[in-house]
């Protein structure tokens, strides 16, 4: 309906579309594996569902209580990795960072939490393959958005 709409400069059209309609967002009914990355300070999390067929990612979904940057990056990341190999997925975040240009420290942490949740899902898959009963695998983030905000606040003073 609005395909020809020209989006003004600033927030680019692709980012706005991911903001308005995040792709692959929500729960997956029968994933191969599930990973969670958690920022213990802010309690922000990303949960990542991966459906694998051998080394190919057949489907991926994510959910988060985090900020819009996390949503946009999660949406872009899942779009890039579906129907690609896990090896390709390991390089996808770098490609997104290049595509988005210079990221703030906070945005880098958002990218990191999305990627960590994906990595956690692959660890969960390994554990399941090894016969362990693990509902999901949890990775705790080393860097927190809260600390970054404090640091940025200090540097602005």
């Amino acid at each position, binding site marked *: *309906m*609005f395909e020809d*709409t020209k*989006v*003004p*400069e*600033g*927030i680019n*059209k692709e980012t*706005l579309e991911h*903001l*308005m*309609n*995040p792709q692959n*967002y*929500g*729960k997956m009914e029968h994933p191969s594996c599930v990973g*969670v990355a958690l920022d213990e300070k*802010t*309690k922000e*999390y990303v*949960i990542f569902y991966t459906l694998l067929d051998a080394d190919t990612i057949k489907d991926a979904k994510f*959910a*988060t*209580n985090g*900020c*819009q940057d996390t*949503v946009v990056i999660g949406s872009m990341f899942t779009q890039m990795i579906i129907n690609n190999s896990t090896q390709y997925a390991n390089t996808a975040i770098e490609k997104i960072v290049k595509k988005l240009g210079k990221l703030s420290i906070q945005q880098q942490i958002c990218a990191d939490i999305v990627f960590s949740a994906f990595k956690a899902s692959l660890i969960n898959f390994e554990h399941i393959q090894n016969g362990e009963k693990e509902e999901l695998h949890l990775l705790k983030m080393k860097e927190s958005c*809260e600390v970054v905000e404090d640091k940025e606040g200090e540097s602005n003073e």
Partner: protein
Amino acid sequence: MNKLYQKKHELWLHITFASFAIGNEEIKSRLYDFSQIAFRHMKWLGEDILASNQDYNYDRDMSLKKEASVFIIINSLVKEIEAIQELYPDTILGERVKTDDAYLLEYLAQILSFPMNDVVVTSFNMKRVWLDKNLSQEQIDALTLFLFEESYKEYELILIYAYMQARTNDALQFNVFQDLIDESHFHLKSFGNMMAKLGILTLPRMLHEMTYIVKDLKQFVVDGIAEEEAAKVMCKELSERIKDAELSKFFDFINYQESYHIELMKKLL
């Protein structure tokens, strides 16, 4: 988990966002009233589900149809209301909900009977222009990000507080949750109408159960106070960046409301 609850949740959102999308102030206001009634239906249906030792969740399977005219939005609402009728139980509550819906259908039919009501809807056009304000691109960008962030947060808070309210036997907690829910409804309404003005109206994303199943109330409140503090900072920054007296005053007003939310939340500790 519970189909009726899920459909009611979706209907509440559809009525609420139809109200935001439509520019005619009278229709907007009436639909918002009906959306609040639908939210109460959701609350009462939830209470019945819990009383019968079952449970519900906040899953949804819907998208906001980005319709270009008022009549397309209203017709889509009519279909959804008609479809949910068969799910209502044969109880006193079920009868109450059915009569409320019947009255809403009558009102929607009235809107449809006046062709002049069928005007173009600009709430989804992504133009990000506020016609009666002179905002720079930088200000529009800041406002856009704020509205996406905060509209989600308000929706999240409404549902988390409602989830906890339905599960507490403590009168003080019940009242505090009710106050916080009412406040978040007002904020969601304010931000949703602003998003519509800018042409970026969209549904908040779905809540995952990791977000609303709270195992440690004290920790949740402590974290929530920190979040309210962060929201206050965002409002203050936005108020300073937006060089429009009316909008700046509005964000200052929201900022002061967040301060009182912190006081309300402290009562839960």
